């Protein structure tokens, strides 16, 4: 799995911004906050969170509103709203490009883009220094139809649109989001599946997002995988995310480390 490309804090007007590009999906996220909130939306003890998803083509439709609701519910649990009461945290996500085959894969396109939106939103929040309880990572798992009804097929981890197209028809897709302390934050599924299939997908997702339970994996550079005892180890999403933030902090602290 190639690591996503991220650029942080590149916009001038927004308090925090991030551009995230991964397997054909490119999203620009911007966060403004804490800023003044309308009297009618003001909450006495919490910050109000506003999420705006703008599609690449056209104006927003109910699909974007649905994505905004999912994102709102997930982000509300990790933003420390009690620390900034009576303010507004405004998150805007502009979808810049989608992979060509996105609408011909036959799966729910809201779910395919959801992990990427979550990552972009989180990175923009980190860039804006909004107080967060923990980080989150998210992944898409696709369970393709198996050749025979008895055997189950291997779930695809974070498949590209191309892989989804080739695996058509796909029985079910699942989006999971995990917090830094391995708690499940978001669980959205679409299609037909059994509980066992869902549990297997959830386990796989946890592995991809948070990494192995025990320490033993070797931390590797993005894009390369080293053969270690015959096993191919890949970096978990959480480690990638920490790497991004570490680089940002190192860059901003360079004045200190230079002396």
């Amino acid at each position, binding site marked *: 799995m190639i690591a996503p490309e991220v650029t942080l804090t590149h916009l001038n*007007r927004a308090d925090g911004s991030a551009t995230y590009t991964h397997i054909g999906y490119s999203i620009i996220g911007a966060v403004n906050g804490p800023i003044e909130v309308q009297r009618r939306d003001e909450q006495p003890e919490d910050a109000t969170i506003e999420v705006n998803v703008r599609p690449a083509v*056209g104006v927003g439709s109910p699909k974007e509103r649905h994505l905004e609701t999912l994102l709102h519910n997930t982000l509300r649990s990790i933003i420390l709203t009690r620390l900034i009461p009576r303010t507004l945290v405004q998150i805007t996500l502009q979808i810049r490009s989608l992979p*060509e085959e996105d609408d011909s894969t036959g799966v729910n396109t809201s779910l395919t883009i959801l992990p990427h939106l979550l990552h972009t939103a989180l990175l923009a929040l980190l860039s804006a220094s909004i107080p967060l309880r923990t980080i989150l990572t998210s992944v898409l798992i696709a369970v393709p139809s198996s050749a025979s009804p008895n055997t189950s097929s291997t779930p695809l981890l974070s498949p590209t649109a191309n892989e989804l197209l080739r695996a058509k028809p796909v029985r079910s897709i699942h989006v999971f989001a995990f917090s830094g302390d391995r708690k499940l934050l978001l669980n959205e599924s679409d299609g037909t599946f059994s509980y066992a299939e869902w549990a297997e997908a959830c386990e796989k997702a946890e592995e991809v997002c948070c990494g192995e339970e025990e320490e033993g994996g070797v931390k590797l550079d993005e894009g390369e995988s080293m053969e270690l005892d015959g096993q191919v180890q890949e970096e978990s999403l959480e480690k990638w995310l920490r790497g991004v933030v570490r680089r940002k902090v190192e860059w901003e602290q360079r004045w200190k480390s230079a002396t």
Partner: protein
Amino acid sequence: MPREAEISLNEREFIKQALQEQIRLDGRAFDAFRPLELTFGDEYGVADVQLGKTRVIARISVDVTTPLPERKFDGIFQIVTEFSPMASPAFEVGRPTDAEVILSRILEKSIRRSNALDTESLCIIAGLKCFALRADVHIIDHDGGLIDAACIAVMAALQHFRRPDVLVEGEKATILSVREREPIPLSILHQPLCVTFSYFEDEVFLVDANLAEEQVRQGEVILTMNKHGEVCQIAKYGGATINPLALLNCTNVALQKVKEMTTFIQKRLEKDAKKRDAGGLLAELSAENAR
């Protein structure tokens, strides 16, 4: 809706004083644009313009639909601009501000009304089927000069875009996908580009003001011209009065700027075409015999 942070009195005075001494805060000449960067996306029809700190992305998409009953021989062309809170926290989704309406109208007048795009070429079968072209303008970062940047973005995207080819047999038309036949470019009749002039006391005219200068100015004139010397639209909505000779002088300056920008866009388009056609593959794939 949070208000835009207004420029402080000190900053205002500083800018005005500097202009009286013929100095612009970022050191540009009075008739110089900020550094312009133009990149194209991987797909056809996506243009990313960076004018100083202002960033605008334009994207062209096409759909097939029925033409308007009063214009049976024309296709449909629509420009949609929506400000998002990304560009500035003062923008609210769903409630168009004055600036948004003005931007939308100016783009409409410059590009649609002046017939920059030949809509007749978008017609497939008269009265039944036509292409509906849609230009989405996304404002990513706002530091003044939105109209100029948006116009460059839309024109560059229009010239970059390739629409699917159509095979018409009598009453039946088949849209050929990208794999079947190479998509064809749009028919652009002329390239209008906008230049915004901001004016201050003592007949000082600045080209391409940034946000701070925009808040200090006494008024603005938005000129749209093409490189052939035709003025496509002028908009001076109010603001302090100016001498008509100054207005005519602006058209001369604008012509020069528009010519520069047009060659710049052309060069970038060629560079992008070369990148896509890496190794002269297109020439190899052509089935023509050398005569």
